[in-house]
């Protein structure tokens, strides 16, 4: 006599309960992870978005012999401490370049001191009571405003927070990444092709394989030490430069690209290789004409992710001197420069309250770049993906 539906249903109850419980546990894990992400990103946005705005005040600027000699004299005493010292410094040169300014007095929007900026943003500012009254009055008259901070995207680092920008670091990152990519993409892909398609399976290739996998797990700061010892001390590559930074990060990215490429090559069905050998292809023709085209999206995706990882790296660059104060956007691969994460690291260590938002703003820029890189990787995969 077989069991009735009711009997079986009664037995199943426990199993259904168990699977429901498991479903809830995994869902809450997901929710927790998502919550962390939301908290992190919104915190960064709240802290970092103000960095994209900077206070400007409208003041009378007097262009005269006196202000040529002593720039602070160009503005009235009551607002003298409220305008940026960086702005005052530019006055003598402006007058030299533009002689007709001499002897005039104009109402101009000028960059405010970071304390005014912080005060307008509602942060602790260090302004005196009397200065606050002045700022309040200016704001009432519409002469003190937060405006879009173009300087943040066009200038290098500065000790004055209102002048500090991410441009030098961004340029350093671009140049460093170019070096990294030029070095490790060809070497990594060719290494992977050799190991996967040409090398015979013996103790030597197995040792190489194990070591490549281990290299991918080595703490990145050790690559910085290696870079210091080999590139700077032995080969004499100038320190703090994109070229040495790029070479050091290439050491770190190489195993990632090799592993990604090997995975991509391995996922190409063997039937394609057999077909190619069957029509009389040499090994290189098999790889070039049949295996590589199919595995290209995977290789590109892996490489971009490896580069994105290198882009966010700071530790090895500390060792080779790329965490430096770089006020000018560097023009060549052998100029001292810094990179975005290193710039963020520098700002995070600044005591001035105004650098907090710079730090968060820098993180937002870096995140935006990384997200667009990863989006490119996804797009490339979709574009070149083929069915077989």
């Amino acid at each position, binding site marked *: 006599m077989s069991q009735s539906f009711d009997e079986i249903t009664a037995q199943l109850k426990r199993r259904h309960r168990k699977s429901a419980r498991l479903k809830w546990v995994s869902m809450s894990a997901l929710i927790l992870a998502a919550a962390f992400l939301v908290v992190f990103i919104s915190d960064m946005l709240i802290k970092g978005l103000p960095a994209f705005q900077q206070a400007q005040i409208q003041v009378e600027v007097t262009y005269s012999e006196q202000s040529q000699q002593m720039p602070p004299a160009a503005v009235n005493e009551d607002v003298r401490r409220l305008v940026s010292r960086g702005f005052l410094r530019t006055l003598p040169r402006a007058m030299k370049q533009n002689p007709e300014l001499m002897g005039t007095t104009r109402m101009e929007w000028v960059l405010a001191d970071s304390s005014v900026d912080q005060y307008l943003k509602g942060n602790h500012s260090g302004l005196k009571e009397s200065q606050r009254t002045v700022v309040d009055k200016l704001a009432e008259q519409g002469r003190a405003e937060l405006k879009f901070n173009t300087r943040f995207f066009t200038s290098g680092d500065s000790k004055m927070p209102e002048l500090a920008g991410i441009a030098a670091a961004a340029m350093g990152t671009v140049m460093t990444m170019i070096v990294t990519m030029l070095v490790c993409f060809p070497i990594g892909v060719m290494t992977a092709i050799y190991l996967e398609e040409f090398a015979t*399976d013996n103790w030597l290739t197995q040792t190489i394989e194990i070591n490549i996998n281990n290299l991918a797990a080595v703490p990145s700061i050790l690559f910085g030490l290696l870079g210091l010892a080999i590139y700077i001390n032995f080969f004499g590559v100038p320190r703090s430069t994109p070229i040495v930074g790029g070479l050091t990060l290439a050491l770190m990215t190489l195993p990632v690209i090799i592993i990604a490429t090997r995975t991509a090559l391995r996922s190409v069905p063997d039937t394609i290789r057999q*077909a190619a*050998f*069957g*029509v*009389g292809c040499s090994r290189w023709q098999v790889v070039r*004409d049949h295996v590589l085209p199919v595995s290209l999206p995977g290789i590109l995706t892996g490489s971009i992710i490896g580069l994105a990882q290198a882009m966010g790296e700071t530790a090895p660059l500390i060792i080779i001197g790329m965490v430096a104060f770089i006020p000018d956007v560097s023009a060549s691969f052998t100029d001292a420069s810094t990179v975005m994460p290193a710039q963020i690291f520098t700002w995070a260590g600044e005591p001035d309250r105004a650098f907090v938002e710079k730090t968060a703003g820098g993180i937002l820029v870096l995140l935006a770049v990384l997200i667009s890189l990863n989006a490119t990787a996804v797009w490339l995969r979709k574009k070149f993906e*083929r*069915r*077989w």
Partner: protein
Amino acid sequence: MINEQIARAETGAPKQAHDSSPGQPVRVNEDANHDLSIRVRDLNLWYGKNQALKNVNIDIFQKNVTALIGPSGCGKSTFLRCLNRMNDLIKNVRIEGLVEMDGRDVNEAKMDEIALRRRVGMVFQKPNPFPKSIYENIAYAPRMHDLVSRKSDQDELVEQALRDAGLWNEVKDKLAEPGTSLSGGQQQRLCIARAIAVKPDVILMDEPTSALDPISTATIEDLMDKLKQQFTIVTVTHNMQQAARVADYTAFFHLGELIEYNDTRMMFSNPHTKKAEDYITGRYG
């Protein structure tokens, strides 16, 4: 009558070796073409320590279809792959013995396996067109081997290969589409067209219809019958009826040994060995 048809295709020195491995009488259909294409003597093959082929002696005749049958793991596919050195791609393979084509040992050091594969094409069990256009699937190999230079020659060659493979009418309007967009049977004919595009002497087919439906299978069988006018075909099949339908000669392999090699009609009507008889009649395998 039957006895009259029995003839040794053996010539010269290997005769003795042949005699030493009993149970391999070679009977030749007198109506057929008897020109030798590939001569195999004392072929032994090991995968590591495991011997997969034992003292195989066989003569493959030009412009005939030779079918290799036998239970799974009997070495028929391994033997097939010896003929164009596809076994080179597998690790730990050791081959001894002679595989002679056009007076040359294909395993000799001087023999370039690419030259060999130019003359001995292959069609695989699962249709495996390149992930490229239909046109490119055909044109790739001739271009690589410098058989064509001008674009017009190339177009002509693609059309001819597709016509010979009986696929032209179905694909002539969509040559730019991927080869993988075709149905399974069409893909397999595309692979055959790809193989004949380089004008080989021999086409090896490794269970070419095992992944196909009966109608596609029948189409391929008709095609094999037509192609043997131009090419020597060696095919591995699990399907006894297929061997009976398309093959001029049939070789029965068992546990790495060539048990019987015979004219197909003879093999199926009057097998010489007990093992072959058991297998063919379905009592075994």
